[in-house]
């Protein structure tokens, strides 16, 4: 009895109500809520006091006022536009870095991650060095390195590196085309693990023909078809200028061919998939669909070349200030056609326009211009993040138990089927959650753009705040912008993740 008495709760000083776990938890919740309210209230008071002292109340009306500052990388924006337009420029510039950056870093990361597991010593060691150097140095330093070392070392714009070099070169086009056909034929008809002897023969004869034709074509016949090369890309200290492809008047009709090509390719792909399911006969459906699609695109291009054209075109001669009638071909070669005329009368659905500098040789007039700031922030983020993604991919692949590989081999699955059907689905399950984290890191690190004066959302908002004094509104807007981007990435990654979850008990 005495033992029982000793452990009786009634001996405690506190009444029973305050020893009830549920009530204790409730009290803790209430105390916490009170602290939160006090802190928030204090914050509110401080913000209000600060704003009153500067005579500014937070509002969104000021966004309609004239911005009055210029922005680089801003398209058609000018200083006469409103604050909200500047803000939009910043948001789009951030998206340009984040979306293209995510795509690029994923591709590079997966490649390097696979290289980390390569049986090739050199490849493995180099990719290991890549990962260790890049993930163990600050990303800001890397962005500066791209900006001040890699890009500043490029030649000035007047001496820009051009690719390809301008000029007329002879190419053995016929031999190339013939070789391509033979290689495609070999590819189509001689594959497979257990190919019969005649297929091996076909492959060897085919390779011999390709080698002979090219040797003959280049060494003995010598000259090929003269092709005029125009520079497609300029690289200089002012960034990169890339050619433009402008849709001509034929573009719409050509797109019909392209769309039909896509539809036919998809239908074939599904049809052959169905045939494989129901007969078991293996068919390279992706390959066939791809070839059919390319066929339609080229066919469209050829058909467009047969359009009726006027025999003469009126060309404006600048020197003599007269409009001169010229035969069709001469008009195109004269270089005096306006861009509108070219687009109207051409036989091609897309017109190639090399990047060109204006008369002062300063600014890129035609073509797509990529600024050094964009290059620095883009390369810095992509390369830095790819090192982390490479490690995630490597770990994910290695996380697939060895027994899975053994079971696949014991069943006789080919190396490709094993990777595609057994290893990859299980590796993705491990890879996707940390990959999502890296995606979020990249999108948030894009605010480092301010270091190389790239006009991303953070930099633009910073300028807006400095000029308008609307710090609270500005900060709220920039926070919301990053939040929207991050939540979108999270949403997509969560949906993808759901697909790869394992079903267990």
């Amino acid at each position, binding site marked *: 009895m005495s033992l029982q008495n000793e452990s009786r709760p009634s001996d405690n000083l506190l009444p029973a109500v305050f020893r009830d776990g549920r009530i204790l938890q409730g009290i803790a919740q209430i105390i916490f809520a009170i602290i939160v309210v006090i802190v928030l209230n204090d914050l509110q008071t401080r913000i209000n006091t600060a704003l009153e002292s500067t005579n500014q109340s937070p509002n969104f009306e000021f966004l309609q006022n004239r911005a009055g500052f210029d922005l680089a990388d801003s398209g058609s924006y000018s200083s006469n536009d409103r604050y909200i337009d500047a803000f939009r420029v910043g948001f789009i510039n951030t998206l340009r870095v984040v979306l293209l950056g995510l795509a690029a870093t994923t591709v590079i990361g997966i490649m390097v991650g696979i290289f980390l597991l390569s049986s090739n010593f050199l490849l493995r060691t180099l990719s290991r060095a890549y990962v260790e150097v890049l993930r163990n140095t600050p990303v800001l330093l890397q962005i500066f390195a791209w900006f001040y070392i890699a890009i500043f070392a490029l030649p000035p714009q007047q001496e820009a590196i051009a690719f390809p070099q301008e000029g007329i070169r002879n190419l053995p086009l016929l031999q190339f085309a013939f070789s391509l056909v033979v290689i495609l034929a070999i590819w189509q008809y001689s594959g497979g693990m257990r190919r019969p002897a005649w297929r091996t023969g076909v492959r060897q004869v085919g390779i011999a023909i390709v080698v002979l034709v090219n040797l003959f074509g280049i060494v003995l016949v010598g000259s090929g078809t003269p092709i005029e090369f125009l520079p497609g890309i300029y690289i200089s200290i002012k960034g990169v200028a890339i050619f433009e492809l402008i849709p001509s008047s034929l573009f719409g009709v050509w797109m019909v061919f392209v769309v039909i090509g896509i539809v036919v390719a998809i239908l074939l792909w599904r049809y052959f998939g169905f045939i494989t399911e129901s007969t*078991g006969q293996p068919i390279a459906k992706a390959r066939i669909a791809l070839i059919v699609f390319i066929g339609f695109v080229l066919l469209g291009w050829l058909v467009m070349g047969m359009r009726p054209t006027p025999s003469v075109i009126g060309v404006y001669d600048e020197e003599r200030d007269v409009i001169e009638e010229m035969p069709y071909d001469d008009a195109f070669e004269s270089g005096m056609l306006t861009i509108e005329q070219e687009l109207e009368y051409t036989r091609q659905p897309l017109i190639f326009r090399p990047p060109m500098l204006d008369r002062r040789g300063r600014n890129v007039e035609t073509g797509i211009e990529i600024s050094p700031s964009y290059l620095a922030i883009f390369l810095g983020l992509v390369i830095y993040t790819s090192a982390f993604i490479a490690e995630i991919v490597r770990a994910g692949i290695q996380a697939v138990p060895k027994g899975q590989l053994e079971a696949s081999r*014991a*069943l006789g699955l080919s190396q490709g089927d094993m990777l595609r059907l057994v290893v990859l689905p299980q590796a993705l399950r491990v890879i996707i959650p940390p990959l999502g984290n890296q995606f979020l890191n990249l999108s948030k690190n894009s605010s480092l753009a301010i270091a190389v004066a790239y006009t991303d959302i953070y930099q633009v908002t910073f300028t807006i705040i400095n000029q308008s004094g609307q710090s609270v509104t500005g900060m709220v807007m920039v926070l919301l912008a990053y939040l929207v981007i991050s939540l979108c990435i999270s949403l997509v990654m969560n949906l993808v993740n759901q697909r790869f979850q*394992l079903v267990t008990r």
Partner: protein
Amino acid sequence: MQDSSTQVMAGDEPIIICREMNKWFGDFHVLRNISLEVMPQEVLVIIGPSGSGKSTLIRCINRLEEHQDGTIIVNGIELSHDVQNIAEIRRETGMVFQQFNLFPHLTVMDNITLAPMKVRHWARDRAEQRAMDLLERVEIPEQAFKYPGQLSGGQQQRVAIARALAMEPKIMLFDEPTSALDPEMIKEVLDVMKELARTGMTMLVVTHEMGFAREVADRVIFMDMGRIVEEGPPENFFSPDIVHHPRTQEFLDQIL
């Protein structure tokens, strides 16, 4: 169409031949001068202490491990670095693992139909029909559309057996198929294996189940330190009257 090269008829010639086979893991000599012949439809049980090389031996037969010296001929095809030979041997050889090694991201049905469709190029209908027949044979047809993670150990191992059988192999290799199972599940797996042996499958079984060896085996092999120490029919092997090699006797004394 599948064209298997030389087909060996049952009862004619050995379906597996190992001659003077040696294997090392680094400096460790795992298999020493193994010479072994297995006839079609024979059930061969391999016993021995852990580390004696019995798992490695059967893993060499479908090239999950590479032997460094000697010859292995399976179903008339010599195992070498020739990838086509390896692929062909693996098509004719089913394997069941201690840890089941089912594909956790695929349903039971997909686990079973995967290899017949991808390797044997069967139509889906045919592969699924075959899978259902096999699931009925291992007595779990109702589990066909569940995932491996939803099954008990014994059920998973029976699915693994069905998966190996779906390829219609000539030889089945069992690598300690019951060692990872609870006692009451061991029986359900052994029953499936006994039934398989009765249908005339060539089986190589590494196991510690002496009851199974006594009941089903045509021949028992005792391995130690990478050598085949002793072999014989089970009635001799487990008879108290026979004089064994001292190492065999020591092992038998411990487990019986």
